[in-house]
Structures are given as structure tokens and as C-alpha cells.
């Protein structure tokens, strides 16, 4: 028996996909540009999906309204960054970061607060009823989108990158956009904090235990519903942060952006294994890479490629790459 029993096979999928794409793309510099773009996109999707997978794992709640927090975060960022034009217009990176950091923080706070209300009003009455959860959370997202239109208007709003984050750095012949590097760093930070919390703190242990057997966690004397509310709020806040990143990645925001990203998020958490944050990271990176490679190689099949990826993974591991024990 081994103390640490890490399943390495899923970890190899990301480099395997990247290596397989290299001969198809041909040019090394193009491959590097696409790979970094894919990893950055994957990291943003991971930020959004990490909360959702825990919400499902902990309370078996199918939240199809998660996308509304993405859009909300992005729209809040347009307001905050718009009000800090002097800072975002500066060529100095530190001044840009001083503007972006509060935008992220406020977007997370607003998304988290709305998440608290969303859980109380929409999710709590339908615990244990999957069909009603799907219907009511989708309805909640539609209402959220309409409220966003009321506040910010129905039109597309530009979310330009701060001056210091524009442009690219050259690595040989490959041009790597600076913002994609920022997205990679933010994604890794979020993954690091989540991993540390889940593995090194008692609250993290409770979340992991609750994902496996919530009835037993209650039998040990812990209020699983309070834990769930906390996870739901943090998940909503992370979706808000992901929305800021996604908006900056696309450089514009629309009220329907959450619904558009929703499909990708569900593909990611199904690939990863419902309730697994490590699995969500692998799934997000695979989806990000696949979207970028197929977008370059065969744009007409780009939309289908991630569905095909999910089907292939499920044929290999029907419960996702890192299935949670006892589920």
C-alpha cells in the first residue's frame, strides 16, 4: 500500500494533446502561441468551473444559472475599470494592476452577494429535485441577464485591456499576448489557494468529505447546509472573477456571455469528474487547448470538438478523469 497514490494518467492528457497537435499545426511558433492561448483560456474556465463542481459535489445541486455570475462580474468590471481610466490608460503595469485588482475584488464581492441571495431564494427550495433545479436556475439566469440589461443596457460594452497588458512578448518567432500570461498566473494562484484550502484546512477537509458522503458529515456534527452556502457564495465569487478575466480576454461583454460560457463549464466539470477540483483543472485545460487548436486547424468543427473530447474521455472514464469516491 502506498501513502500517496496519485493517478498520473489524467495528468498526461494535457501534454499528450499538446504534443499530438504539434505535427498537425506544423509551425512551432504558431503551436506555442496557440498552446499558451489555450492554457490561458483553460485557466479562466477553471476559475469559473471550480466553484460549480464543488456546488454539485457537495449538495448534488445542478446550477444552470452559474453563468449569470460570470456576466455580472464582467459588467461590474466595466464600471470599475471605466471609472479608473487614468490608471488603466497608464503605460506602467503596476498602475494597471492597481486598477484591475479592485475591479476583480468588487466583481467577486458583488457576484458572491448575489450568489447568497440566489441560493436562498432559488436553490434552497429545490434541494434534491434535479428537474426543478435545472428549470429554476436557468430561469434565474434569464432574470439576471434582464436585470443586467436594465442596469448596463442591452448593448455590447467594450472592456479594453489596460495599456500595460496589451501587446505581446516574443518568444523566438512566437508572439505570446501579455494578458494570456496574466490569466495563467491568476488561474494558477486560484488553483493554489483552492488546493491549499481543500487539503490543509479543516473547512477544506469538510468540503472534501461532504462531496463524498454528506450524510456522514452531518452525523459527525457538522451543519452541511452552512458549508454549502459558503461554497456556493465562494463559487459565485470565483465565477465573478472568471467573468472579469473572460471579459478582458474577449475585450467586450454582453449580457448573454454567461449562457455562452455555461456549455463549456459543464463540459469541463463532466470531464473532470463531478465534485473534483483537480479534475476540473485538467478538463478546463483540455477544453482550452482543444478550442484553440481546432479553431486554427478546422474552424468549422471547433464547436463540436469539445463535445467530442468529452465523449472520448467518458468512453475512457465514464465518471470523469478524477471521479470522487463514494459518489
Amino acid at each position, binding site marked *: 500500500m502506498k501513502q500517496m*497514490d496519485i493517478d498520473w494518467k489524467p495528468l498526461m492528457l494535457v501534454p499528450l494533446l499538446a504534443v499530438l497537435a504539434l505535427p498537425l499545426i506544423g509551425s512551432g511558433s504558431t503551436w506555442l502561441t496557440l498552446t499558451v492561448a489555450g492554457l490561458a483560456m483553460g485557466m479562466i474556465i477553471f476559475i469559473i468551473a471550480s466553484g460549480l463542481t464543488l456546488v454539485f459535489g457537495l449538495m448534488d445541486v445542478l446550477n444552470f444559472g452559474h453563468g449569470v455570475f460570470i456576466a455580472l462580474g464582467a459588467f461590474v468590471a466595466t464600471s470599475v475599470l471605466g471609472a479608473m481610466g487614468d490608471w488603466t490608460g497608464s503605460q506602467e503595469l503596476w498602475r494597471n494592476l492597481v486598477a484591475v485588482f479592485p475591479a476583480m475584488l468588487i466583481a467577486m464581492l458583488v457576484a458572491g452577494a448575489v450568489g447568497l441571495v440566489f441560493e436562498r431564494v432559488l436553490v434552497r427550495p429545490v434541494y434534491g429535485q434535479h428537474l426543478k433545479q435545472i428549470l429554476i436556475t436557468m430561469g434565474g439566469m434569464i432574470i439576471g441577464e434582464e436585470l443586467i440589461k436594465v442596469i448596463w443596457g442591452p448593448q455590447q460594452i467594450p472592456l479594453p485591456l489596460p495599456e500595460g497588458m496589451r501587446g505581446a512578448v516574443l518568444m523566438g518567432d512566437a508572439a505570446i499576448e501579455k494578458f494570456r500570461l496574466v490569466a495563467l498566473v491568476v488561474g494558477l494562484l486560484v488553483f493554489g489557494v483552492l488546493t491549499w484550502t481543500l487539503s490543509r484546512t*479543516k473547512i477544506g477537509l469538510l468540503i472534501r468529505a461532504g462531496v463524498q458522503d454528506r450524510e456522514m458529515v452531518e452525523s459527525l456534527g457538522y451543519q452541511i447546509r452552512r458549508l454549502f452556502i459558503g461554497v456556493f457564495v465562494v463559487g459565485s465569487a470565483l465565477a465573478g472573477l472568471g467573468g472579469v478575466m473572460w471579459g478582458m480576454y474577449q475585450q467586450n461583454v454582453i449580457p448573454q456571455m454567461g449562457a455562452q460560457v455555461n456549455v463549456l463549464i459543464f463540459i469541463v466539470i463532466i470531464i473532470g469528474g463531478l465534485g473534483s477540483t483537480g479534475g476540473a483543472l485538467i478538463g478546463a485545460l483540455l477544453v482550452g487547448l482543444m478550442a484553440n487548436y481546432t479553431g486554427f486547424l478546422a474552424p468549422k468543427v471547433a464547436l463540436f470538438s469539445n463535445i467530442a473530447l468529452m465523449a472520448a474521455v467518458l468512453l475512457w472514464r465514464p465518471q470523469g478523469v478524477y471521479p470522487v469516491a463514494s459518489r
Partner: protein
Amino acid sequence: MSEPLLALEGVHSNIGAYHILHGVDLIVPRGQLTMLLGRNGAGKTTTLRTIMGLWRASAGRVMFAGNDITAMRTPQIAALNIAYVPETMGIFADLTVKENMLLAARAAKRAGDMDDTRLKWIFSLFPAVEKFWSYPAGKLSGGQKQMLAVARAIVEPRELLIVDEPSKGLAPAIINNMIDAFAELKTSGVTILLVEQNINFARKLGDTVAIMDNGRVVHCGAMQALADDEELQRSLLGLSL
């Protein structure tokens, strides 16, 4: 008989459309080990789950230390120092043995906060828990998992320990180890309510016994009296001890 720590008074329980418990009356005396026996489907597990609030009693009362706990939620019931080991053991397979124990030690924030003296006592009862301390619980054998489940239940002092079929599926050597551990637990003064199908296990450990059939308790008394009365055994259990 000593004063009751736990008492069920006319408890009914429904699971969906099914009426499982039909007025269970049960007394668990303080400081004793009460065996709950009965054939499959008699309602033993449902009784334990109803005590823990995992399924609601539709009628009747569950009294603990003189207080009505019928309407309490499971975490509130557990907070009364009632530990429960389900038939499935409830081990968190992705967590290590240490992390499983830490979760049950509600007062401890980290492993170092757990009571060392108590841990050493638990290790003496269940050496496998110490041996595999840093290993994923999901990798343990069935017997080791059962040891961990009971060890986790007693990581802090408890008023009442409720265990559902601890010998189920275990090898005879492990069952003997389990019997020794429960005998030691009895001497520590903890009140125990044990569901068992293993008659030898029940006879060696039980102070009092309750036998269930069709969602009711049909016999209550001293374990020794049942063990000495073959006619009673045949009529209640269809076998002799």
C-alpha cells in the same frame, strides 16, 4: 436495570410510501451495551437512523438523557455526544486515516490538537489505525475500515455510541479483535447500542437485548436470560445461541 440514557416511545417511521417502524419502544440503559437483534428487514437500521435524525419519526418520541430529541437535526443530535457508525461505515475514502479522525474530533482544528492520551488508547484498541495513519482510507481492507469507523466514533469521549453491524463481512480473527475492542469500550463506561446479526458477537458482549420483528420491538430483557433460554431463542430468532 440502570436509568435509561436513550428511550424510544412508540416511534413510527416512514420512508417514502413505506411504513417501516410501527411503534418502536426501546430503552438503552446508561453504561450498558444493548444489542438490537432481528432478521433482515426487521427495522433495526431504520431505528438507528431515526434516532440520529437521518430519517424523521412520523410519530412517537426519542428521548436522550431526559430530553426530547425527536425534532432535532442530525448535527444537533451528534453534538449531544452521540456517535454513529453506519452499516456502510461512512469512511471518507479520499481522505487519509488521520484526516478521517481529525474530522470526528470536532474540538481540534489540526491533527496536533487531538488528545494524545486518547489517541494512544485508541491505537491500543485498533493498531491498524496507527499503522495506516497517513494512508488514504479508501485503500484499507474491510476490517481496517471498520476499525477506523469505530475509532473515529470514539476519538472524543461520547455519551452514546451507536454502531450498525460492526462484524458484517469481516473475517473471524477481525471479529474477535472487534469483540475485544467493544469489551474494552464497555469498561470505559460508554453506553453502546449495537445492531448485530452475528449471534456469537451479541452473546459475548450484550448486557441487555432487544429483538425486532416487522418494525416493532418484540422482546426486551437481559442478554444472559436470552442466552440461557433455548426455547425463547427459537421462538424469537428461529435459532439457538
